[in-house]
């Protein structure tokens, strides 16, 4: 089984006529992704890099005669909730929300509706998903030639709360000859559609993935949830984590990096998270350049065991 996206995944871009969305569409098409349509209300009949534009998702589905697998949502924060509801109600099952600065209640509503309808949300405030050499869904890795440089196919899955660090880590894995099976920028907000623990089963079921690298930050309980998942399920997939923002432990109440990155209590400090991850058998790297060797060690241990 292939996690999240593969060469057959079809998707649309909501807000496709926006400046960033036009670039993103070009990048994804160049990389080999199957973008079957776009939506911008009032722009029906146009094309963006050859992709037909519709007024609504329902209209798009009707005219194409099928429901696409996914949608990349790039509309402004005030309109994102409605766009995502529209995609979910049209039957789309994988929604990547690029938009940042969406109010938290709106995010909770989108995520709750997705749960009720059996859809998965990645983000908000993320760069999307890439399966190196196959397809990418979102701005992750940038233009196709840049994405190619940083992301070569391999056997390590990457999940990251930072879009830029997804590429930095993947590039390091690529340079070390390990490569990347699938990388997912999960988003930097306090509430996101898919957390590490929620994505783990898909990586476990993915035949290409032999280890996971996660990039993480202070704030929230997502790492504790991952630690609990690993402990409770006895997951065999080796995980190496990198924790940035350790300095924030001395600065409670101040937000850096991403909207969800803030130390509010004892449980969401970097120090406490590192401890929890370690306790669950997750290796925590001191710096990015150590990651490839730690991953090789962990994969080696698995083979021996």
């Amino acid at each position: 089984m292939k996690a999240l996206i593969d060469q057959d995944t079809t998707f649309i871009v909501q807000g496709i006529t926006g400046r960033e969305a036009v670039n993103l569409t070009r990048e994804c098409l160049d990389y080999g992704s199957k973008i079957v349509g776009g939506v911008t209300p009032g722009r029906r009949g146009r094309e963006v890099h050859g992709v037909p534009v519709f007024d609504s998702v329902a209209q798009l589905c009707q005219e194409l005669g099928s429901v696409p697998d996914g949608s990349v949502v790039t509309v402004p924060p005030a309109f994102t909730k409605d766009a995502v509801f529209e995609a979910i109600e049209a039957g789309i099952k994988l929604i990547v929300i690029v938009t940042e600065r969406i109010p938290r209640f709106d995010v909770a509503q989108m995520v709750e509706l997705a749960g009720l309808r059996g859809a998965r949300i990645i983000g908000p405030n993320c760069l999307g998903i890439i399966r190196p050499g196959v397809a990418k869904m979102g701005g992750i890795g940038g233009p196709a030639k840049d994405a190619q440089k940083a992301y070569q196919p391999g056997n390590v899955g990457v999940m990251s709360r930072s879009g830029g660090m997804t590429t930095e880590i993947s590039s390091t894995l690529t340079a070390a000859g390990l490569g990347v099976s699938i990388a997912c920028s999960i988003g930097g907000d306090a509430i996101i559609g898919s957390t590490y623990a929620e994505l783990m089963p898909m990586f476990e079921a993915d035949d290409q993935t032999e280890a996971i690298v996660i990039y993480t930050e202070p704030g929230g309980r997502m790492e504790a949830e991952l630690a609990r998942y690993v402990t409770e399920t006895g997951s065999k997939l080796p995980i190496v984590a990198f924790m940035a923002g350790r300095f924030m432990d001395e600065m409670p109440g101040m937000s850096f990096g991403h909207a969800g990155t803030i130390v509010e209590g004892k449980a969401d400090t970097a120090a406490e998270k590192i401890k929890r991850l370690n306790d669950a058998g997750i290796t925590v790297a001191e710096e990015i350049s150590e990651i490839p060797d730690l991953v090789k060690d962990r994969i080696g241990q698995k083979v021996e065991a």
Partner: protein
Amino acid sequence: MRFYEYESRQILEREGIPVAPGGFATDAEAAKAIAADIGGPVVIKSQVLTGGRMKAGGVKFADTPEEAEAHAREILALEINGHMPRGVLIGAKAEIKQEYYAGVIYDGIRKLPTFVFSDMGGIDIEEVAEQHPDHIGRGHFSTVLPSMDFRAKDTVASVGITGSELNRLTPILSKLARLFVKYDMTLAEINPLAQLADGTFVAVDAHMDMENEGRPRQKALLKDLGVADEETREAREPTEFEIEGERIDSVDHRGVAGNVTEFDGNLGLVIGAGGGSLTLFDAVRSYGGRPANYCEIGGNPSVSKAKNLTKLVLSKPGVDKIAVMMSIVSNTRVDIVARGVIKACLELGFDPAEKIAVFRIPGAWEEEGFKILEKYGVEYFDRSVSLHGAAKRAVEKIGAGAAA
């Protein structure tokens, strides 16, 4: 964004939750008048956006208006954790039968808002959670289905409350949840929620946080409360350096120069983006470096934005050199940032090769960027040098410079 207690009280009142009688004053005379109006023992509370005001002497009790005036004068002049009070709140010191806690927060794992309720109010709720878990009730409520009232009732009942207390507390908790949703709060709590001798309930103290993302659509409330747009209400007041950083970011819509934060070191940082900045700041410190600032550049800034931010950092007293570093960029252009930081050095009369300890930004348009850096003799790295490697080199260079 935090609200002062007196503002939180106003929000409770406008949403129909009863509050203990009282008023807000910015001078001692007005405090005296409010105390006289209340007529009886009062409490005078410092209005600061920081905890620990009781311990610091920011909360005092008075039996007469004159005593209230004297206390108010002292409290108004009292700095607490670096915060001067906005004013004082004078409240009736009512006879309380029992104290409760009512709150609404988000649960990031369940991804839903949740009620938190306790029959042990008046103390820190985290302490209650640790020591008396059976005295805390929690209950998530849906953001898409209309389920608030019975969920509130279940939460109150879960700590063993029934009878008229249950029926009086349920609407209070429910209204608190409604205002939490309506005003884009990330925290809305009443602590203590007091039961008076006659059995009714009033909010004695309240604490609310609105998320910044909600501010654009909450302008009406903020206007009513008199909260100005430029009030950031962060954990600490912004410094002049930080205000200038914000200004540089806001005057040019191209790209982002966010979260400019002042520190007291000698190595200026021009770093990006979100995760890259967090990693690099840690890295500099792990090698013994002393950052002069933190910032997050990204989103393809213009030459002038990169230049102005760099000039701000270079002009900060005590800054010997700057390090320009980012994680691999795909949207931001390497050559544009290179141009901006070099221009900043030149305009201030510095030699870029001397002032820029290292430049490590790989990614989009890197060949063009590296050419420019070469021309000015700036030491630069491509992606083969890690973020930590670049930070280490910057710290080495500034160490050598300081020794010379």
